[in-house]
């Protein structure tokens, strides 16, 4: 018996059609997977009840890689094959990595490829493959927890990730067999988890202090869209540094020298330091007993107080504050403008961090959601909406198309295919047809803007669809599909449905457009709205006029003998008046003239049709048809 979850009213899916979506926080130190069940977003634990999966992969000879806690345990004994914090290498070239400190930890394979590969007993492995192992583990956990295959996932990335880093993350997901709906910025995910997207518009700060990295992001919520105003941080500052500072202090108290300790002893000391730090979250003082794990003897015993902890970690917290100041300056805002400060990352559990951050921003930081889980939770909420488990009116606007996208049709008119403020990713198709008999090619001109005429919009790209089989005008069915992916990349495909010929082009619509230009384009469309509509209607009628004029002319040229002279004169007169009005009349007048010509030529058209059928049938037996 399948286990069921509560759906929103009217959203119950048919059996086997349930759309299972997860949010994944692919972290430097730890990763998590979360989903929405019965309307509640929650992270999913493994069989041992652990929600956090250490982002560590250990490669073995002739065996599958180990992932998570079990891999982390072997970090000391098998450091070359145990890879942690692979996120630092994503989308980076070998040169970038060698400039950092990571190069000394692992052995990188030489190769002509720009992608760095780490040499392990299982061969040379790329960062994308390592990330994919972590994602595979989370995917498996999610599928066991949800009892079915996953439909799709939202994966979070730091706001400062560039295109190469985002693409590598997508590649890793693809390799792990995950269908990625969207990459979501980590601070945005945290804000979504707190429901800030449903709140008032304003500026929010996301303070993310993890084990080894620190990020500060300033977001502005504007009509449901989170815009990243600025980011700052330190990729080598986190809770681990707190532990090291405590360990250093303990060594001093015990009169020991770090150089005299083995790796195992140092590790034990760090674990004890971390325990002491966590104990001080609730207690004022903590008892510490240091024992030599190898000799089994007691080295030192003493008391560690909150005050002492503050002395040790305050300098590091102040470093984060100077990054906050920098981010505020970059965003050009005052700390008084901040509405909310969201705390993310395990190290924000330290009361001293909350206290100093609260003082700095003059507000109470948001800490109700577990800071380790908040990013994954937000990603799950987003995934649930994107996959369509919520009624449409609850659709979150996280990224939208700033200006409508469309194409040019006959007469220089714009046919909008995707309207502005449509959320991305998005795909829309529209059918078009040929304008002339025997037309074998179609020029597709992609434009952007809100105006009705092509000349008032911005041209993005042109391409041609060739090889349309010759047919009468209007018989061909050409489907033009506009697809905008989550990164705002537009691809337009034109496909003739009968022959299957296809042509496609890719453009980045936002390329080269500043916010000011977008605003000007929008304002113009409002200022010119009335005139534009009139111009459009006139142009439509002119196109119609051209079409009917051309077809009547060709009919007279072909079958003029079918016309009585009086009738011929009437048609000629209607054509002349239409030609006159087409160039000098308004839309309504052109429309009436088109109708007049249409009526004048109806009988003629009927006679042509009869004659055509007759000539086609002459000389044939009835059963040949």
């Amino acid at each position, binding site marked *: 018996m*399948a*286990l069921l979850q509560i759906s929103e009213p009217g959203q*119950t899916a048919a059996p086997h059609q349930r759309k299972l979506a997860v949010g994944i926080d692919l972290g430097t130190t730890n990763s998590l997977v979360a989903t929405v*069940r*019965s309307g509640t977003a929650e992270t999913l634990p493994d*069989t041992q009840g652990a929600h956090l999966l250490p982002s560590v992969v250990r490669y073995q000879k002739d065996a599958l890689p180990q992932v998570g806690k079990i891999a982390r345990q072997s970090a000391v004994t098998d450091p070359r094959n145990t890879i942690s914090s692979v996120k630092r290498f994503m989308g980076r070239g070998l040169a970038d990595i060698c400039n950092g400190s990571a190069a000394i930890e692992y052995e990188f394979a030489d190769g002509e490829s720009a992608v760095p590969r780490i040499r392990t007993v299982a061969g040379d492995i790329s960062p994308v493959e390592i990330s994919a192992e972590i994602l595979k583990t989370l995917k498996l956990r999610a599928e066991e927890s*949800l009892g079915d295959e996953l439909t799709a996932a939202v994966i979070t990335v730091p706001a400062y990730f560039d295109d190469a880093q985002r693409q590598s993350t997508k590649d890793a997901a693809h390799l792990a067999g995950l269908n990625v709906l969207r990459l979501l910025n980590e601070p945005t995910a945290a804000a979504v988890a707190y429901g800030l997207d449903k709140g008032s518009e304003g500026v929010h700060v996301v303070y993310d202090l993890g084990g080894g990295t620190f990020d500060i992001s300033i977001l502005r919520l504007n009509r449901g869209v989170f815009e990243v105003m600025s980011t700052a941080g330190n990729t080598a500052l986190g809770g681990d540094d707190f532990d090291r500072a405590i360990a250093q202090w303990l060594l001093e108290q015990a009169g020991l020298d770090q150089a005299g300790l083995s790796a195992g002893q140092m590790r034990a000391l760090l674990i004890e330091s971390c325990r002491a730090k966590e104990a001080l979250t609730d207690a004022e003082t903590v008892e510490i007993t240091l024992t030599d794990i190898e000799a089994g003897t007691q080295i030192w015993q003493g008391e560690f107080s909150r005050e002492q902890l503050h002395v040790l970690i305050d300098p590091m917290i102040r470093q984060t504050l100077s990054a906050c100041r920098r981010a505020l300056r970059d965003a050009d805002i005052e700390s008084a403008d901040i509405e909310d400060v969201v705390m993310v990352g395990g190290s924000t559990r330290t009361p001293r961090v909350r206290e100093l951050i609260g003082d700095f921003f003059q507000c109470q930081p948001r800490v109700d959601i577990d800071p380790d889980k908040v990013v994954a939770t937000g990603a799950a909420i987003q995934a649930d909406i994107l996959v369509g488990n919520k009624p449409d009116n609850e659709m979150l606007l996280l990224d939208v198309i700033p200006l409508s996208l469309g194409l040019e049709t006959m007469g220089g008119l714009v046919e909008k295919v995707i309207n502005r403020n449509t959320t991305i990713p998005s795909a829309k198709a529209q059918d078009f047809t040929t304008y002339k008999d025997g037309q074998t090619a179609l020029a597709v001109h992609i434009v952007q803007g809100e105006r009705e005429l092509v000349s008032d919009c911005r041209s993005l790209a042109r391409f041609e669809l060739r090889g349309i089989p010759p047919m009468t005008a209007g018989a061909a069915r050409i489907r033009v599909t506009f697809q905008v992916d989550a990164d705002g990349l537009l691809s337009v495909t034109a496909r003739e449905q009968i022959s299957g010929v296809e042509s496609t082009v890719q453009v980045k619509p936002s390329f080269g457009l500043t916010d000011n230009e977008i605003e000007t384009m929008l304002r113009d469309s409002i200022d010119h709205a009335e005139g534009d509509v009139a111009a459009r209607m006139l142009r439509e009628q002119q196109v119609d006029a051209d079409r009917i004029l051309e077809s009547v002319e060709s009919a007279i040229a072909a079958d003029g003998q079918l016309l009585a002279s009086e009738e011929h004169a009437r048609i000629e007169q209607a054509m002349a008046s239409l030609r006159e009005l087409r160039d000098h009349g308004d839309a309504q007048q052109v429309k009436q003239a088109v109708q007049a010509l249409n009526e004048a030529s109806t009988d003629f058209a009927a006679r042509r049709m009869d004659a055509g059928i007759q000539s086609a049938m002459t000389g044939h037996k009835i059963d040949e048809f």
Partner: protein
Amino acid sequence: MSITLTEAAAVRIKAFLDNRGSGVGLRLGIKTTGCSGMAYVIEFADEIDDADKVFEDKGVSVLVDPKSLIYLDGTELDYTKEGLNEGFKFNNPNVKDSCGCGESFTV
């Protein structure tokens, strides 16, 4: 006519409704679809329809439309865990046969 909830199910439904922040109760129903004829509907309810039969059990209002009730009468709704998976389960005495996965059934 009766629909009942186990203690575990009632606790969960109350928690989910609280988390959602709105809703008058839980709607149970059936719809004729699926590989084996019928499938269960389990949804949050924002309003009670005139025709709905309302069952109160362990502090939760359970709404069932009269047509579905014919197939659901006597059902006990449970919340269970199977390995990592967890969710609601219908213990429905009317069911004669269900498809392999149990998502749809016949009566």
